[in-house]
């Protein structure tokens, strides 16, 4: 059972950062995954008083505060318009509305969890993260980094026009995905992120001209699927995941080549 000795509502990011340098202290985010642990936390650091629960629009990006809930992402018109509904599609099967009202984008991304729909989706989009000390880096670079004691302040999604699709397969509707695929084409690049492998999501970068020249999406998807290392767990074997990847990538590419229509199914 999770034990917390002291709770501190941070009054500044600097205070939160200083507290977070101690190994036994922890930023609690939405606290949903943390609650499942048996951690003994000396000081739980709460960022909910820092105004980081807002999605701000700038000329060229959406800046999502780390305490923005998954439900806020699901309902946000601007982000969903930009992403062809990928954002909504990636979070809507995560447990229930009550859960998504608590779970935060900061907790989901900072954890770099293998099962994360959220990480998979944002990896395919043109995304950066703003770290309190580490500055702004690409999400892909951040996803490869070891966990440290910095603070993820914002997730920045650039308003790069593109066409995208999010696909996942689950054994039951609100379970973790057996496999998740996010594909996004913008500029001269096609990005295909594959998550729940069950290791953390990775992203393939493919020149968009290959997609334009493709006459057999099934074959193309199969080639991409075989490039992604898969593992086995109780939800599925590596071989099954490779097969799923082929199917989900093909479906995503069909959506993209068909005009990136909204994910209605």
């Amino acid at each position: 059972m999770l034990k917390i000795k002291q709770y501190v509502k941070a009054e500044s990011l600097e205070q939160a950062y200083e507290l977070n340098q101690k190994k036994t202290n922890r930023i609690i985010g939405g606290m949903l995954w943390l609650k499942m642990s048996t951690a003994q936390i000396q000081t739980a650091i709460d960022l909910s008083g820092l105004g980081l629960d807002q999605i701000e629009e700038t000329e060229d990006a959406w800046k999502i505060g780390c305490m923005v809930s998954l439900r806020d992402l699901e309902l946000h018109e601007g982000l969903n318009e930009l992403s062809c509904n990928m954002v909504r599609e990636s979070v809507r099967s995560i447990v229930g509305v009550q859960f998504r009202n608590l779970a935060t984008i900061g907790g989901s991304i900072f954890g770099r969890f293998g099962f994360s729909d959220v990480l998979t989706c944002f990896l395919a989009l043109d995304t950066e993260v703003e770290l309190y000390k580490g500055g702004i880096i690409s999400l892909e670079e951040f996803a490869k980094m070891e966990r440290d004691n910095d603070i993820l302040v914002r997730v920045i999604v650039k308003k790069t026009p593109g066409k995208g699709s999010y696909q996942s397969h689950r054994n039951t509707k609100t379970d973790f995905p057996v496999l998740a695929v996010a594909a996004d084409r913008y500029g001269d690049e096609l990005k295909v992120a594959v998550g729940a492998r069950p290791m953390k999501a990775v992203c393939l970068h493919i020149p968009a001209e290959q997609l334009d020249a493709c006459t057999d999406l099934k074959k193309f998807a199969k080639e991409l699927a075989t490039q992604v290392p898969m593992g086995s767990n109780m939800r599925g074997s590596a071989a099954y995941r490779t097969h799923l990847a082929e199917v989900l990538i093909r479906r995503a590419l069909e959506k993209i080549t068909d005009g990136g229509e909204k994910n209605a199914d």
Partner: protein
Amino acid sequence: MQISLTLNGKKITEEIADDLLLIDFVRNHGCYSVKRGCETSNCGLCTVFLDEKPVLSCSVLAARADGHKVDTLEGLQEEAEEFGSFIAGQGAEQCGFCNPGMIMNAIALFRENPDPSDDEIREYLAGNLCRCSGYEGQLRGIHDFLEYKRKGGAR
């Protein structure tokens, strides 16, 4: 630590342990409709409204509710009774354990979307587990309630 919050319209100021969960706080104040079910943030039995939004009280520190408004089924009596009678009318409660959480979340749905489709109902209530009914009884009850509302509240 000391917190002040409004529970079901009543302002409460109290000394609490730093790791007290909101579910235990509200139950300590007599709100026994809020139940501990799965302990894995999955079942929806412990649903309360935090600033009008449905949340899992088993997964929120009471400290985080400091300065906020918390409502449980006990605070929504009229609304809950009106809707609950349609669930009971379909015999959808069976053991009844999931019912308070289900009613809370259904009320949240109706407030957000007064005329939901079946898919929208299923999606919104996906975080409320019932191990008796298979959900068909609840869905029929919701249909009846929505029809009653469409007719302006006449049976």
